[in-house]
């Protein structure tokens, strides 16, 4: 999802975009071999950053990247010099309720019926929806996005990996009060560059940062959950402007 953004930032920054375990081209061990949770994915991300000798960094968080990034920040707040949240949620009011209700139902009681409801997310049409919903011009969105995701999610056993993470998502919501305290205490520089048409995280989730971060810059962009597909230049411009104003030595 970052393939078009990386070249636009690479002149000024060293850019790293890991595939989380179970996603993309990283290994995808079965649920018997690895205990998938947002906590364990954050642990691997921290190890990767240590391995790459990344001392301090700014982070761009999107969707699952947010709870992983928030855990990095809570664990080692001194490493983070700025945050860009692109539909990376930290507030209850960011949830699009109709989308999330089946997730909460599955977390409360994982049975055949609640599992069937969340399994819908692995189907091609629903992955495609994540990319196209809220996009004013769907002709700007490359089909290889949802096709590749569909291929990875449909590997043998990957459905069980995704179900584990779906079930664990509630742990992120439980973390929100700590994340918000972190914002209040550190006043970390934050840019919210948020696709306003996202059917998963609504614009109130972007506006909410202002409650805890008085200088948060909040920008709503015409686009959806994967706004980088249609508006990469706008996001890159906002990021380059924002990051250049932050003193990263602090």
């Amino acid at each position, binding site marked *: 999802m970052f*393939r078009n953004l990386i070249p636009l930032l690479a002149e000024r920054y060293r850019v790293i975009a890991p595939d989380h375990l179970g996603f993309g*081209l990283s290994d995808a061990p079965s649920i018997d071999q690895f205990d998938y949770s947002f906590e364990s994915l954050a642990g691997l991300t921290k190890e990767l950053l240590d391995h790459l000798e990344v001392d301090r960094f700014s982070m761009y968080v999107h969707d699952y990247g947010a709870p992983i990034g928030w855990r990095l920040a809570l664990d080692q707040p001194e490493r983070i010099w700025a945050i860009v949240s692109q539909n990376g949620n930290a507030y209850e009011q960011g949830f699009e309720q109709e989308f999330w209700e089946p997730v909460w139902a599955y977390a409360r009681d994982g049975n055949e019926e609640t599992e069937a409801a969340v399994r819908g997310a692995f189907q091609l049409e629903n992955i495609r929806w994540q990319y196209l919903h809220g996009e004013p011009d769907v*002709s*700007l*969105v*490359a*089909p*290889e996005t949802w*096709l*590749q995701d*569909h*291929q990875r999610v449909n590997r043998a056993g990957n459905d069980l990996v995704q179900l584990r993470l779906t079930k664990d998502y509630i742990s992120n919501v439980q973390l929100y009060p700590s994340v918000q305290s972190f914002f209040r205490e550190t006043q970390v520089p934050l840019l919210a560059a948020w696709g306003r048409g996202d059917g998963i995280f609504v614009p109130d989730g972007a506006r909410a940062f202002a409650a805890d971060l008085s200088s948060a810059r909040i920008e709503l962009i015409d686009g959806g959950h994967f706004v980088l597909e249609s508006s990469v230049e706008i996001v890159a411009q906002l990021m380059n402007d924002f990051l250049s104003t932050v003193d990263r030595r602090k």
Partner: protein
Amino acid sequence: MTTFNTVNAGGLDVFYREAGDPSAPKLLLLGGFPSSSHQFRNVLDALAGTFHMVSFDYPGFGNTEMPDPGTWDYTFDHLADVVDEALQAIGFTGPMGLYMQDYGGPIGNRLISKHPDWLQWQVIQNANTYEEGFTAAWDGIRHVLWANRNAETEAPLEAFLEHDTVKAIYLTGTKDPSRMTPDNWNMDLWFLARPGAHRVQLDLFYDYRTNAALYPDWQERLRLTQPKTLIFWGQGDIFFTPEGGDAYLRDLPDATLIKLDAGHFAIEDHLDEIVDGIRSFYSKDVLGK
């Protein structure tokens, strides 16, 4: 900015990528096996300020509809007809440049036969027109399948449609594999995993014999018309030999041949050389500046 579109042609929903100002000079991008217009994604971005470009997914490839090979004939004639109809449907006609890679050669040559006035200049990248261009990877197709097509002669060719071989098409001859995104073969394999997709590709392997039969005609046309030609040739291509690139100079002594330390998809790891080469060739050799 590239857009992703469909147009109805030959009764099918045909997918195409488009970039550049519609008033800019036209450049048609015709790609090859086992990819789709996906292979031109970086070229479309890089040359959008210079050309108006389109690239179609052929039926059976990429995002274009894949009709049942039991009822739809997968031949190069048929693919070229669909591309021709799609070009006319979107009004991308008249004098243009053609970028031809692999299967893009046979399809482009058929288009030129139908519309000789469309060819203003051409880029040939690992698109073969000479017998000496075939590597040994073709042996099972040229010497076995074309002689006698049956389940037994088809079976070994299905290897070209499996993960490791599709990946090898990208990596053979590629100096630095870390510059080759796995998105390429993963994307191809998604399409090849569709029911009937292997039959489609085997039909085209078999029909490629019609291209070999037309090579002398295409060579003769090159000799007679001497189109302005820029050749990029990945020297390590799994399918086409370096001699296949050199051979063009016999018929086109004025062509520019740029040999690349690359494979079948040189465009993945030699993008800068290729787009800079095209810009410079267009400016100097086509416009005469």
